[in-house]
């Protein structure tokens, strides 16, 4: 790969960054992502306050915490994670393939279409049009639009990837597979259990959907991103290509087989439940190989992940990834399930995955890319540190608190205490959770303000930059 790049540079066939990457669009995606992050966190705080019986809003239909709880999860998955991934792919894919995306106008069309999909979902949920599957709540009439949008995304990014000749870098394996998986997963979850099958079978498909949405949409896009940015920041290749192969193919094979582990002890046939449990434990072994590969890549860099902030985001996420997967392998056993299913343990686990791993990774990439795109340093680099510590620290407290609280809820239920007891004993845990949530929220607000100030700063210096760029092209 290195040799090939050298040859291409020597022949002056290296396309210029402006020809490859639509940088403005990357920034737009980040703005959209952070906007929906704010919406999602506000919704989460609302539900958190409702549980503590301190909901400040009047009991009005469109402000109902039950509806906003669905906006919380949908806005984070489709509004924050998806937008941030799309923005990052607009940076990564053209730079790795040395080809622009299929069509720039299409890129802009997708951007606006996707914002429409997310906004319409939120409005639909506010007006009570949800469908009954987690992350598949998207109102009926939006499903085909979103499905079409995913097809366009696959065409737009798939074309440059398919045009490359010779061996593909690891990131592109993950991206290429994710483009196929996301389309298939969305189609499966939003149509099959709604229209074609009911009951336990719908539960099996629904479990597959909520699992694949994390495993086949978020996870491959996330790891693809790590395989790209970590070697660049460390200026050294990934430690073992063989382990990269094991990681990708292990994930591809074992991840989709586990959907039913979300519904253990349901009427879904027991042998299918055991199958899901076994493949979950198998995947944990694959995850260990990926972690070893990234530790191996880091080994001997002299604490780079402490001094380099984006890198610190990445390795914090990798640490949380190891913890969540270890947790998966334990909590998926029937013994553990009997205690922790239906409790806040699961909520803590979900937050550790979605925020502790993937959101932190994306925030790390944003911290790295925004100054590069704006061609100016961060307005105040110390604020980036605050953003990191409040995000990662807040998440650690929130996840730890909910996981612990879940154990107490489970024990209370098994002991046949009156139901109210499990609510009362949750109050301290829910109180800590809301404080941690507010800290995380404050951190994101700081980041947004910081982004704005940096952007404004870059505009003030812009006149000096533009003529220079004009000279260079002339």
């Amino acid at each position, binding site marked *: 790969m290195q040799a090939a790049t050298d040859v291409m540079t020597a022949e002056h066939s290296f396309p210029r960054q402006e020809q490859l990457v639509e940088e403005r669009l990357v920034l737009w995606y980040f703005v959209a992502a952070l906007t929906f992050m704010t919406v999602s966190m506000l919704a989460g705080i609302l539900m958190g306050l*409702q*549980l503590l*019986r301190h909901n400040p809003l009047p*009991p009005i239909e469109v402000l*109902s*915490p*039950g*509806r906003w*709880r669905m906006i919380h999860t949908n806005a984070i998955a489709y509004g924050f994670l998806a937008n941030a991934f799309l923005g990052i792919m607009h940076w990564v894919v053209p730079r790795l393939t040395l080809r622009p995306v299929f069509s720039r106008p299409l890129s802009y069309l997708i951007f606006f279409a996707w914002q429409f999909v997310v906004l319409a979902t939120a409005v639909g949920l506010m007006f*009570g049009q*949800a469908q*009954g599957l*987690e992350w*598949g709540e998207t109102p009926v009439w939006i499903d085909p639009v979103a499905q079409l949008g995913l097809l366009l995304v696959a065409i737009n990014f798939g074309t440059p*990837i398919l045009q490359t000749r010779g*061996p*593909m870098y690891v990131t592109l*394996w993950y991206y*290429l*597979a994710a483009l*196929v998986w996301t389309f*298939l997963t969305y189609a499966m979850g939003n149509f*099959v*259990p*709604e229209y074609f099958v*009911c*009951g*336990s*079978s*719908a*539960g*099996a*498909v629904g*479990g*597959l959907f909520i699992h694949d949405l994390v495993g*086949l949409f978020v996870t491959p896009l996330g790891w693809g991103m790590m395989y790209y940015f970590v070697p660049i920041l460390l200026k050294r290749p990934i430690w073992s290509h063989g382990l990269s*192969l094991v990681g990708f*193919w292990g994930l591809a094979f074992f991840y*989709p*087989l586990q*959907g039913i582990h*979300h519904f253990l*002890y*349901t*009427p879904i*046939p027991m042998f*299918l439940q055991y*199958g899901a449990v076994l493949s979950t434990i198998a995947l944990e072994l694959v995850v260990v190989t990926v972690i070893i590969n990234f530790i191996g890549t880091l080994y001997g860099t002299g604490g780079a992940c402490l001094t380099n902030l984006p890198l610190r985001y990445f390795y914090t996420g990798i640490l949380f990834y190891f913890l969540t997967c270890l947790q998966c392998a334990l909590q998926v056993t029937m013994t553990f*399930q009997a*205690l922790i299913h*239906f*409790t806040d343990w*699961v*909520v803590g686990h979900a937050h550790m995955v979605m925020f502790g791993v993937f959101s932190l990774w994306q925030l790390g990439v944003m911290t790295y890319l925004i100054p590069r795109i704006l061609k100016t340093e961060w307005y105040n680099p110390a604020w980036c540190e605050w953003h990191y510590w409040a995000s990662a620290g807040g998440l650690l407290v929130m996840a730890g608190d909910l996981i612990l609280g879940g154990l107490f809820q489970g024990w209370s*239920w098994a*002991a046949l205490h009156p*139901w*109210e007891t499990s*609510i*009362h004993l949750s109050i301290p845990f829910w109180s800590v959770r809301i404080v941690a949530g507010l800290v995380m929220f404050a951190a994101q607000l700081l980041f947004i303000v910081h982004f704005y100030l940096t952007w404004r700063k870059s505009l003030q210096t812009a006149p000096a930059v533009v003529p220079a760029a004009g000279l260079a092209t002339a």
Partner: protein
Amino acid sequence: MFERKSGIILIAGIGFFALAFLSNAVVPVLMYRHLPEQTAEQLVNGNLRYQFEDLAQRFPQAFETAYGQPPADPEKAGRWYDEHCASALKLGHQIYVGEGCWHCHSQFVRPVSNEDRRWGPVSKSWEYQNELQRPVMFGTRRVGPDLSREGGRRSSDWHAVHFFEPEALSQKSPMPRYPWLFDGSPDKPNIRGLALITYIQWLGSWHETYPYYEDYTAVPIKTAAAAE
């Protein structure tokens, strides 16, 4: 194969996905093909009809505003109640989904953690083979109790007050209030309120243990015969 586009798209992308769909989704679909999906009309049973007519007694004005007057002829009136009961079930289900009730209340009793002693018989697949379980309302979190054996456990006016103001009946309940299901006071549920109460009263109404789910012990045939 492992690093080629065709391998990644065809084997990992489509092949493994299809394998998982076949083994995890098509298998249960085939296993339950002898249990056809029931419509809402087929789900109206005696227990539920009793509760629905009970709504007409308790909230006569609200009921009349929502559904009008039943026909005088008893046979026609029976069919009239059945039809409206089925439509109330469907609307109630829609509200249950749209309000996100299923994010805090589960609908399945597990064979562990003493759940059968708290709620009654462990859930079976046949209970879910109907259009109101498409998608299935298993749920993933219990802030409030499981609801799959809630029907008949409490009276409809308890539910009305509880939806209007949960804390009036369950002290320090974190459940939100749902005043938009009423015309101003708990004794005036609107069509949506009546529908949601109907849906809740349906949950478990198909069970032989209704409504004393957890106290019920099936009598072995021999013991019953000896007693006679």
